[in-house]
């Protein structure tokens, strides 16, 4: 029988623990395929976050480190400085990266730290049960914004990609989405581009991926994809925010 599709060897055979309909699985696959296609598995080190992707070290078939909450860019910095020929990436959610880890991501970016960051933004804290994130949309109901996020009370969502794109250190920053096939394919191109930026030693690279959380959004997977497209993309416009030639 002809093989039409094969799981990349850069993912282990461990079953993913993610909820049904969660888009982490897609993003894991895109990252792993990018590593595979660039032929860098043997020199890649991944840094897992605290959050839903905390067990990423069980899934990516490369050397991995598990960081404290928000500190993945600092851990990646230490790793990269010791072995500059390694390809080092972090995989972080929005609570991890944009809230508790805001300092670490900002300074890794402004240092032009030659690492790649996969930033999964689903506008909520998933693992802890659906609390408000720095990226939660105005009016969005979460377990800690039960009346909807009120900007007068707790401010506005952070557009991390735009913010970091103002810095001189980054070589590549893009925001993508995985709500349909076309955008999934675009996301893969961006992730590959981010790794290529690191390989070419052009400085910090990050891909922000808009993602869904059907469980904590209280939606079916299909509704969640639609909600992402209708609500998140207007707040978080897609596209390349910075690219150094």
């Amino acid at each position, binding site marked *: 029988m002809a093989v039409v599709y094969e799981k990349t060897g850069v993912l282990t055979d461990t079953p993913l623990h993610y909820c049904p309909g969660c888009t982490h699985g897609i993003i894991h696959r895109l990252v792993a395929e990018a590593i595979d296609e660039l032929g860098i598995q043997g020199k890649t*080190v991944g840094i897992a976050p605290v959050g839903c992707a905390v067990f990423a070290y069980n899934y990516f078939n490369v050397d991995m*480190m*598990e960081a404290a909450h928000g500190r993945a860019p*600092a851990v990646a910095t*230490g790793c990269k400085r010791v072995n500059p020929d390694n390809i080092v990436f972090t995989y972080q959610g929005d609570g991890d990266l944009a809230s508790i880890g805001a300092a670490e991501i900002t*300074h890794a970016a402004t240092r032009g730290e030659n690492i790649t960051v996969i930033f999964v933004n689903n506008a909520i804290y998933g693992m802890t049960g659906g609390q408000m994130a720095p990226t939660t949309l105005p009016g969005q109901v979460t377990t800690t914004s039960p009346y909807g996020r009120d900007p007068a009370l707790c401010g506005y969502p952070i557009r991390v990609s735009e913010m970091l794109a103002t810095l001189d250190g980054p070589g590549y920053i893009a925001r993508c989405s995985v709500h349909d096939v076309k955008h999934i394919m675009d996301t893969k191109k961006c992730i590959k581009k981010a790794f290529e930026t690191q390989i070419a030693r052009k400085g910090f690279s990050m891909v922000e991926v808009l993602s869904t959380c059907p469980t904590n959004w209280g939606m079916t997977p299909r509704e969640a994809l639609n909600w992402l497209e209708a609500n998140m993309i207007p707040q978080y416009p897609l596209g390349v925010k910075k690219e150094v030639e």
Partner: protein
Amino acid sequence: MGQKMLMKGNEAIAEAAIQAGCRFFFGYPITPQNQIPEYMSKRLPKIEGGCFLQAESEVAAINMVYGAAGAGGRVMTSSSSPGISLKQEGISYIVGAELPCVIVNMVRGGPGLGSIQPAQSDYYQSTRGGGHGDYRMLVLAPSSVQEAVELTQTAFDLADKYRNPVLVMGDGLIGQMMEPVEMPEYKKPADLPEKTWAATGWTPSSDRERAIINSLYIDPAVLEKHVNHLYEKYAVMERTECRWQEEMTEDADYVIVAYGTTARIARSAMRKLRAEGIRAGLIRPITLWPFPNAPIAKAAEHAKAFLTVEMSMGQMVDDVRLAVDGKKPVRFFGRTGGIVPTVREIITEVEKIAKEEA
């Protein structure tokens, strides 16, 4: 190298680290330890493969240490009390992930911002773990610049040997004073194992397991096994790594227990007391953890009383009491950050105890 030089404690520690093969330093400015990162920022970029990086915070610095240690680097950070508090989260993770590194704490007065002068009030934090979870760290407390040099070099080997962080704890005086030092050139001991566990890049055809640098053990039974494994290491450290110095304890009626700079002042007091005809002795813990219980328990067999002297309100005195185990009175004299106990004050305290015991 090898000849005697006049060096400030902080700079001597930095050079000793370099001579011990330390090639990576991540830190953040805080008084009174700034000469360590400053020295490293001058030296490390001139050494092949060396990297000094000023982190955005103490929190980031210790996590850079985690990443560098996880990648197999010989790595160090330094700070002073408030900064060490900030590093505690990272230290807990480093212990959990079994990574070797050296951390220097030039202790200053607290709590809070406290003062920038020498203190010993971080004893509890240093010897009881400091961060969250069940763990221990080897804590080395030099009492001279020369000893700081030697213990810093030892610290790197101990860290690698046990895959556990080692804390070099100086009161601010050790960092700030200048003393003649002989800087030993370092020779890497042959018996240190290769860091085959480090995350340096792997494929399925590699001749080792895939590296996972991690402190998460979600299954409670697996976590308990992991923590038991850590405690087996700590048991070995307690058996084999305990260091102390004893002076004139064999016939001592009154045993002073002090570490770091305070021990030097206590030594002067002890000698003067001897000259007065009072049989005083001194036990100076060099490892604060593991604590030298044995010599203290032994001295408790014949001594009349103990005096613990610290630049704090009394923290190590708890360990002295545990070691003495109620057999003899244990008294305490201490001053807080920046107020160094004087020889006269210590003599007065011992005389007071001698009078009461008589």
